[in-house]
């Protein structure tokens, strides 16, 4: 289980604005360890999935190029108070982390 996602959701008119900070090493696999002369093993988020009441509304394909502790922000049209937004990431090591927030 990966580190918990920090999420903030706000309803703005007819859409909900979701902001999330995802603690993750995001090691590209290209950075060299000077002590061993080998690269630090790649460890990065491969995809991010957002769901509204259980239905997938966004899938983002990330990879090596995204920096450490990525911040993501997006809007979901038609979301209303009481809806549940779920955000989940999966990484190349099979690890994942998921956070749910109920819109107010």
């Amino acid at each position, binding site marked *: 289980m990966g580190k918990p996602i*920090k999420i903030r959701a706000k309803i703005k008119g007819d859409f909900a604005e979701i*902001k999330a900070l995802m603690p993750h090493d995001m090691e590209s696999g290209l950075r060299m360890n000077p002590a061993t002369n080998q690269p630090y093993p790649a460890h990065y988020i491969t995809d991010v999935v957002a769901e509204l009441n259980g239905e997938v509304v966004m899938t983002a394909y990330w990879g090596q190029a995204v920096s450490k*502790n990525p911040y993501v922000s997006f809007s979901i049209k038609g979301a209303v108070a009481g809806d549940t937004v779920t955000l989940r990431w999966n990484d190349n090591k099979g690890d994942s982390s998921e956070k749910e927030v109920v819109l107010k």
Partner: protein
Amino acid sequence: MKKIILPLCLIGGLLCGLTAMAGPEEDRLAMVEYYSDRFPDVPLQEFANGLYAFDTIAREQWIEMEDFPPYEIAIEDGQALFETPFANGKSYADCFENGGIGVKQNYPYFDTDAGEVVTLELAINHCREANGEEPLLYMIGALAEISAYMAYTSRGHEMAVKVPADKPGAVAAYAAGKQFYYTRRGQLNFACSSCHIQSAGLKLRADRLSTTLGQATHWPVYRSKWGEIGTLQKRFAECNSQVWAKPLEAQSVEYRNLEYFLSYISNGLELNGPGSRR
């Protein structure tokens, strides 16, 4: 030394007229006057936000980032580290007044017994060593995170650094820090003042240069360039490298004196650390 300082002083105007006789308070007031004249539309407290005080585009991006700041993780990790007891059962709270909460505005201070400037980060490691723990690195990592947490608890407190006139060691340390600020160094032959006093507000590549006033209030900082939280001492080393001067060790005597000078200059401004920069 006068030969080096004088030309800079003539260009800098107000600031060095009576160097031999003026004290820290005169220096601070001269800085406030200089920057208020140069940037009449900037409220005094805004100088604590560095380049965001006058770079409108960077400011917009920064305001949006502050909604969910990148240093938030460092504050949480720092709090966890701060609250974890040492092997001997004691904790950081035992080393600091008020349990270490809301105390950053009093640092650095001059320790007359030890005859040296004590910064908050030096005090953190002193605390560790006094309790049988290994010292932490001074530029990034765990110590920067603890510093970030302590800075966060001190937000809103006015900087209140003391340079007692009756303590010659303190006066000398402040003077040494000030002299460092105005001394040219490196292959590019710049002094801190070349950029931050003469050229404050002007562009240096894609960034605008911050003012000396307010430089010390927002540390430690999550710098996007670093991808993590780092200390003011790290920034000193980086700035020196950037003028192609040999960087000194973090928490060296010179850098601690420099932090002493810089922090005094920001007296009266509210602390707003940890901060985020590009």
